[in-house]
């Protein structure tokens, strides 16, 4: 056993090394986080890795092993609208030990891997309990189920197999919804919700994909939607940091973007004051646990009386379902060219 001074010295070296890591991440645009997470996500997903993800990870690993030693990049597995990574010179201040773990795979075009969307799980939020309720008595559970049933009907005309986590007004816990999607090996998971916000003048449309957030409003929303999960939000924060750049995270973000875009364009005509709040990451339980690209869409705000009124109209709900279908189609096409069933 060493003396207190020796122990202190050893511990201080740990503190300094840890902080050097943080400092380099700051100067290199979070590249260290990306690398740390890349390593962690293999462990995180080892029980559940899907063939398309395995392929992308193998390609990423291959690219890593064959990368030129003088450059690192900030890239990630990217899609048709790929964010191409910029090559950056290695920081000469880095020690060899510090430099090695910062190296990242080069970006790989997602189109290099044939992917397909065959089975989609639609998750109508809430049920059994009402979720958000408007002043006029419109319940989130009823709207989400109605839109989900409409979406299923529309998708049945396309080459998809559609499964619903609930088809009636029944209480299904979040972990069971997640398990259902995972057991059925769904290719996509789309969870439909209706928001409730203050001030009540807000009419907002927003789509979430898995990831951490420090936005207190989003955290509150996630906390409310996660309330019957049995876990505290702090448990997820730790996990989330480790899946920060999971390939699934990237795919979910692309899916969220396409759905958000389609929904906003489809609804703004009937709802001109609709606010496009874009796509955001958040720690919703259903997005964390699912093993496929997954999004949670807040299709309207029941806190706003006008939006609540619009939601009572069949054609408005049909428009929402149609926009969701177009979003899914658009995402599926971006994966592998034209529609993909059986490919």
């Amino acid at each position, binding site marked *: 056993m*060493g003396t207190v001074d020796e122990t*202190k010295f050893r*511990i201080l070296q740990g503190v*300094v090394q840890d902080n050097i890591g943080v*400092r380099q*991440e700051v100067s290199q645009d979070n590249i260290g986080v990306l690398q740390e997470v890349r390593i962690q996500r293999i462990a995180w997903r080892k029980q559940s890795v899907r063939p398309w993800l395995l392929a992308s990870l193998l390609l990423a690993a291959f690219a890593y092993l064959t990368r030129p030693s003088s450059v690192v990049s900030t890239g990630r597995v990217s899609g048709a609208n790929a964010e191409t990574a910029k090559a950056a010179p290695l920081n000469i201040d880095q020690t060899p030990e510090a430099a090695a773990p910062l190296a990242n795979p080069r970006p790989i075009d997602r189109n290099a891997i044939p992917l397909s969307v065959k089975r989609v799980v639609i998750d109508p939020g809430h049920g059994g309990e009402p979720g958000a309720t408007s002043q006029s008595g419109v319940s989130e559970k009823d709207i989400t189920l109605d839109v989900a049933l409409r979406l299923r009907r529309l998708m049945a005309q396309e080459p998809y197999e559609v499964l619903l986590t609930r088809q009636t007004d029944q209480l299904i816990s979040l972990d069971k919804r997640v398990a259902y999607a995972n057991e059925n090996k769904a290719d996509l998971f789309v969870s439909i919700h209706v928001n409730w916000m203050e001030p009540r003048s807000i009419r907002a449309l927003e789509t979430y994909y898995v990831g951490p957030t*420090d936005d207190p409003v989003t955290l509150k929303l996630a906390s409310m939607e996660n309330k019957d999960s049995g876990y505290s*939000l702090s448990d997820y924060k*730790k996990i989330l940091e480790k899946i920060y750049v999971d390939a699934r995270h990237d795919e979910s973000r692309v899916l969220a973007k396409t759905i958000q875009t389609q929904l906003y364009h489809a609804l703004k005509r009937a709802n001109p004051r609709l606010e496009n709040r874009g796509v955001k990451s958040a720690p919703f339980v259903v997005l964390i646990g699912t093993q496929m690209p997954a999004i949670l869409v807040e299709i309207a705000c029941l806190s706003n009386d006008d939006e609540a009124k619009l939601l009572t109209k069949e054609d408005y709900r049909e428009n929402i379902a149609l926009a969701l279908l177009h979003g899914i189609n658009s995402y599926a096409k971006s994966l592998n060219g034209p529609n993909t069933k059986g490919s």
Partner: protein
Amino acid sequence: MEESNDILCVGIDLGTSRSSISASNGERHVIDSYVGWPVDMVARKLVKKPVMVGREALESRSMLDLRRPLERGIMKEGSEKDQEAVQEILRHLINVAGIKQKSKSKARVRAVVGVPAEAFRVSRQNLRNTMEGIADSVMLVSEPFAVAYGLEALLHALVIDIGAGTADFCVMQGRYPTDDDQRTLPNAGDSIDEQLTKLISERHPEAQFSIHMIREWKERWSFVGDPRNRVVVTAPVKGKPTDMDITDEVRTACESILPPVCETTVDLLSKVEPEFQDKVKNNIILAGGSSLISGLADAIQKSLKEIGGGRAVVVKDPVFAGSDGSLAIARDASSADWEKLSL
């Protein structure tokens, strides 16, 4: 280690409710973590300052855009104003410790800042960026680790630092703690305030009180277990000052953090090497503002009975234990280490 008149080492405990600083020139200060800007020209004329920090801001809140910019021990994100507010708090702390920021002959500031044990790396990076222009070199360490270091409780000890935003746990095993040695819970002072607000509102629906009054009552009367005296406070009811007995509400609210804190304590203890578990169980150290809740150490000890008992003590100076520990780290780190961490 190396210190001169040109160098000032500081330890900062940046807390959700209060922030403290301990400096190598002997200065020690604690401030309320509030920042406010005058709302208009009239307010500016009255307060005679462009920005107010701490108790002064809290007391002038009716004239200010008042911010409490830390949440769960980290900077709120998504709001530039909150980030600016954190900078104001840090700048103010450095000023009250005797450093004049604009002086040409100002000393080089080496700062160690405590953050929650499981703070996101991105949050740490943001904080590091915020320190630019305030300190010359920065290290970020977990709050309970800083407490342990300051007390030289480096081996076979469990530190529980309960603040306003988070309760942070750290097992010291003679090495720099890993993720597995640390935990963060959101159950702390603020969650007690929320609970207390709810309970008093339910029992005294006509009473008028603010969150600041709730915090003041809690800080004065908080306890777990059997009450020594009844807790009677005064609040207006329809404008008339009225006495309310809130003994049961205070106890229930304070005891609401016991189950998660005790469960996490037992869980962390169970992960220590079996032959050292007894030593750690008998060396539990409580720090942070919420450790001043009367009877807390006894309640934690009681919860350890089912695993053979243990001993928990509150540090002598819970408010400064974190900043004193951070200062000890700042002093012990070598100049070479500090050079690597310059901003």
